[in-house]
């Protein structure tokens, strides 16, 4: 019964979801001369900079440093951008949520979906750089979809939690900003994991974002199936985060209106 109602309501508002995603994507680049091309250029330029700066330092142990950097950067920046956009979504939608009935989670979901589309557009850059650097393609490249899928699930969970907290405490934004910066250094984006002392390694594998990066690198850079243990851990944490996110959001959403 509950599920039936949920699906009925979702069907009614799925056009709104599509419209919000479309708006996020079009408004982002509207007025810029290069438009959607920035979705390619941004990761590409970052990759070039990071490769120039850190390539000489760490490049020796890594077969294809540009790909190594790019896989890490794309994954991390998706997580960072999508959780931030979801965090602000309820506040941003306040003028409407205060006046009309709209399912609130649609707003959080729309932001994450638009960043997901952005991620897939950026993936084209990855393919181009693979061709340019002579990185061999393999059937295991397709397995990259698994860590990315679970990362999206994890992001939705985190996004729902952050969106709820941000309604009640506006300084979560700044705290989370600091946290994300810390997370960036903890994701081994531009250095090899081998330089990390043995006793800290577990800390990296506890981080779901790093697990996703590692899985992506296994399938893209090393042409193997992602480590099943890492993948399993990522899957469990993601589903757990999603459940917690739904519960937190569901329990607090009726109070949103009093605080936004």
């Amino acid at each position, binding site marked *: 019964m509950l599920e039936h*109602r949920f699906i009925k309501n979702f069907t009614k508002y799925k056009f709104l979801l599509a419209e919000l995603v479309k708006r996020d994507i079009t*408004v982002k680049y509207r007025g810029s001369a290069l438009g959607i091309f920035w979705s390619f250029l941004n990761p590409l330029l970052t990759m070039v900079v990071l490769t120039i700066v850190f390539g000489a330092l760490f490049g020796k142990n890594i077969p294809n440093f540009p790909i190594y950097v790019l896989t890490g950067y794309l994954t991390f920046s998706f997580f960072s951008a999508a959780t931030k956009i979801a965090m602000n979504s309820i506040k941003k939608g306040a003028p409407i949520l205060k006046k009309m009935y709209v399912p609130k989670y649609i707003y959080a979901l729309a932001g994450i979906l638009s960043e997901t589309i952005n991620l897939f557009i950026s993936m084209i850059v990855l393919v181009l750089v693979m061709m340019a650097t002579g990185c061999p393609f393999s059937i295991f490249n397709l397995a990259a979809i698994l860590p990315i899928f679970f990362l999206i699930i994890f992001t939705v969970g985190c996004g729902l939690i952050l969106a709820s907290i941000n309604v009640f405490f506006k300084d979560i934004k700044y705290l989370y900003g600091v946290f994300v910066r810390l997370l960036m250094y903890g994701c081994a984006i531009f250095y090899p994991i081998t330089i990390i002392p043995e006793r800290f390694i577990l800390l990296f594998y506890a981080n779901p974002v790093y697990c996703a990066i590692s899985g992506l690198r296994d399938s893209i850079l090393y042409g193997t199936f992602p480590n099943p243990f890492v993948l399993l851990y990522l899957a469990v944490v993601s589903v757990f985060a999603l459940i917690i996110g739904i519960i937190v959001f569901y329990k607090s959403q009726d109070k949103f209106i009093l605080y936004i």
Partner: protein
Amino acid sequence: MDTPNHIEINEYNSLQSEKSDSSQDKVVIRAEKINMVFEMSPEKIDNIKEYVIKWLKRDIKREKFVAVNDVSFILNKGDRMGLIGLNGAGKSTLLKIIAGVMKPTNGKITVSGKIAPLLELGAGFDPNYSGRENIFLNGAILGYSKEFLESRYDEIAEFSELGRFLEIPIKNYSSGMRSKLGFSIATIVEPDILILDEVLSVGDAKFRKKSGDKIKSLFNSGVTVLLVSHSITQIKELCNKVIWLENGKIVMSGDAETVCDAYLKSVE
């Protein structure tokens, strides 16, 4: 996971209508002992730092404010109900509860049918979007489907009288143009329930007449109306039922003429 009140009731009502087919006294809105309590802290704590400090000092005060207190009513199809009362009496909160924006603290509200809230026209407009794009965005917010909007697009465009302006971004519109567009989108459906906070008259003299006519034709089509207004003459003219609220409580309810006269007497 977030479902409005009305869906459940749709089914409830379809069950009912099978039993008795007299559509005229079909219950459209049923409010049972609605309470809305806001918990306000006297100082607004909206960041973690202050919250933690206050919590450590055991200093979090909460004051309860009852905005709507034990309100019950039933509206049948075709009823036009006016809400009157001084500012802060709880009229707008009650409208928001009926529209599904807020959930009451306790009590039960059941609403069946499509609601057209003519509360804030164009609340969902995006300034960077053109008029045409905003028709779809705003329509989506109102819960219309893509197919519906595509089939009615020309009608909306024509009613709005905006012509070639529909292709330029809304940020360049005047406020009159914006409300013309908002009105055209909001009234394109044939709603079962119309919610009005003050009777709308928007745009220039010509459009004012047109929007007034449109509202009148909606009124005559047997729609259920909820109207908040400070103009008692208007309430008397348009409504058949009136609820008079004071501090969230119903002071008096019933026939428009009687309640309005009593209200006017008390204000004087």
